[in-house]
């Protein structure tokens, strides 16, 4: 990899693919779709073709135990240098975090992340302001786009090469900073941070809504699925709107017998499952306005249990405007076409 870094001259695109995305316990607890390796391998391959078509001269793919990158490249011939980065060997989301940080250090101009909300969070953890095409290949896909990998790759390649003007095609996402007491652990999230009862991360996903007590959501859109869908039903906030929302939950029930009331909403909290939720309180948050969540309990980041808070331990949660620079695929393709790429006059690359 160090040799490659030395030779990093042309526009480069990085691809992060999470081998564990779309395979967790939510396949058993709800109707969530299983995402096989074959789906990911195909998407990587198509994204590589698109990225090179869009102007990338170099494509780096994160390494993983499933060897998704190597398998995607088998027999593929493209007029660019395509490499699989070294395997970091954690076999967890940390692999994706380290790959994103490596891409930043190597001057990558755009990152394509294949996975659900958790994978996108890993990329933002490793490279906070990454120029990012988030591609939905996971379970909960609030943050990423459901769009074909070929054109997603093209958009990343066009932005990295300057064939599409980044200013025309990107907008900076919000990011949620989570600081557990004593600086013990600092994490980020892109969609929501919740406090749930319990003392174990267990199988990580959340399916017992009765355990959820508080939600801080940076994105709470009416068509969201996940815990942020609860916030969206109370006080929606779009991904490109300033601020966030903080909701406290009362009792919850999966059946529909709760009586109609202003305090009750119904939302798609898991794919294939609607639930009734009793809202205890709700407040709008400004950027930088802290919310304190107190243990005992477990903090979920974008729907996965991650941080255990002991009794009396607290975490400060703030929503900030300086997250990844998200590349709008349609806007990027249109911007390149306005310049008549690849047929028009040459455009100077970055």
């Amino acid at each position: 990899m160090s040799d490659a870094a030395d030779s990093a001259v042309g526009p480069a695109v990085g691809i992060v693919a999470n081998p564990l995305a779309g395979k967790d316990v939510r396949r058993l607890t709800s109707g969530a779709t299983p995402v096989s390796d074959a789906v990911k391998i195909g998407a990587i391959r198509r994204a590589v073709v698109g990225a090179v078509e869009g102007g990338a001269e170099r494509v780096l793919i994160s390494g993983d135990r499933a060897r998704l990158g190597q398998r995607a490249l088998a027999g593929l011939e493209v007029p660019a240098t395509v490499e699989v980065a070294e395997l970091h060997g954690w076999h967890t989301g940390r692999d994706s975090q380290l790959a994103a940080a490596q891409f930043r250090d190597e001057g990558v101009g755009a990152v394509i992340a294949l996975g659900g909300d958790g994978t996108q969070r890993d990329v933002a953890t490793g490279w906070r302001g990454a120029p990012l095409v988030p591609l939905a290949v996971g379970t909960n896909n609030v943050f990423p786009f459901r769009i074909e990998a070929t054109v997603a790759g093209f958009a990343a390649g066009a932005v990295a090469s300057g064939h599409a003007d980044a200013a025309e095609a990107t907008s900076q996402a919000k990011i949620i900073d989570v600081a557990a007491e004593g600086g013990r652990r600092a994490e980020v999230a892109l969609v929501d941070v919740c406090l749930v009862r319990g003392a174990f991360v267990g199988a990580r996903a959340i399916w017992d809504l009765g355990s959820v007590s508080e939600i801080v959501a940076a994105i709470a859109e009416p068509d969201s699925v996940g815990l942020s869908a609860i916030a969206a039903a109370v006080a929606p906030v779009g991904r490109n709107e300033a601020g966030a929302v903080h909701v406290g939950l009362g009792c919850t029930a999966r059946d529909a017998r709760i009586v109609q009331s202003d305090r009750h909403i119904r939302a798609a909290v898991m794919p294939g499952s609607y639930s009734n939720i009793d809202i205890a309180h709700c407040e709008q948050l400004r950027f930088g306005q802290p919310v304190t969540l107190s243990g005992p309990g477990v903090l979920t980041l974008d729907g996965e249990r991650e941080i255990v808070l002991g009794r009396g331990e607290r975490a400060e949660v703030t929503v900030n405007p300086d997250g990844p620079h998200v590349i709008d695929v349609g806007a990027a393709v249109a911007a390149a076409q306005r310049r008549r790429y690849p047929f028009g006059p040459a455009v100077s690359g970055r």
Partner: protein
Amino acid sequence: MDPSSETLLDLHRRMVRIRHFEEAAGRLAEQNRLPGFLHLYVGEEAVAAGVCANLDDDDQISSTHRGHGHLVAKGGDYGGMMAELMGKATGYCGGKGGSMHICDLDLGMLGANGIVGGGVPIAVGAGFANKYRGSDRVSVVFFGDGASNIGAFHEAANMAAALSLPVLFVCENNEYGEFTPRDRTMAITDVVDRAAGYGMPGAIVDGMDVVAVWEAANEAVSRARRGEGPSFIEAKTYRFYNHHGVQTLGMKYRSDDELEQWKQRDPIELFEDRLASAGVLDADGAQAVHAAAQADIEAAIAFAEQSPLPDPDSLLVDVYTPTAYSGATP
């Protein structure tokens, strides 16, 4: 979502009892006090414990050549197990089965199995019987990543899904089939990818986290009891000892770094840390569980060593059934 404190302590006790049985068996084998092959389950305890804690005695499991942990987790008796390993008449199978064929039908343990993948159709057959009889029993099959390449697995998985049988498939993916790494024998990384091909839901869990395994198994067992058919759980795990025995036989098929990395995630140590943080069990309390298991295993070894070998006159007992076939349905 968390298990109750009672369940947490139960999970811990089951894991510790597996570990002490296996460590003792390994020591005895090294001293040539146990005959035959010995496949130790050390490192994989969270899988058997997390699954079996969701089962009743009426529920059935079928097991593998690495089956001691499954029987201990199902509530197996140390004395009968150790005597069976030593080939003694007081063993679970009268001393004639040994490590790889140990069973206890009273606990629903349908048998360890020396044939790789052989346990899969047995559990599916039990699942068929359970459904046919209209009972709410669930059967569970434990099998390895290598077994998922065997024809019997594929036929049984297809049948379980096609007939919507109350069966839980638990793949203990420890990355090696005997001495061969998984990627030499399979073009996929996650065995769970195969579940979709048979039309059953499947999930990956961290096999070193007993709470994660318990949660997933709890959901899968509930699905089966509700009549929603089979589920598939792939537990990512690792064995700390060799394919068989304790020593490595000088065959370098796993790196020291890899082994060390997995040992950093020892399922019992991880769980004891979490139990202490959660205020459920402190270090002294955990030590008492270890001490009790150790005392039990020492008593079991003494019992087994003092027990007689099978009488030569019993040579053909349990080989042929003494009961004439009546043609009656059960």
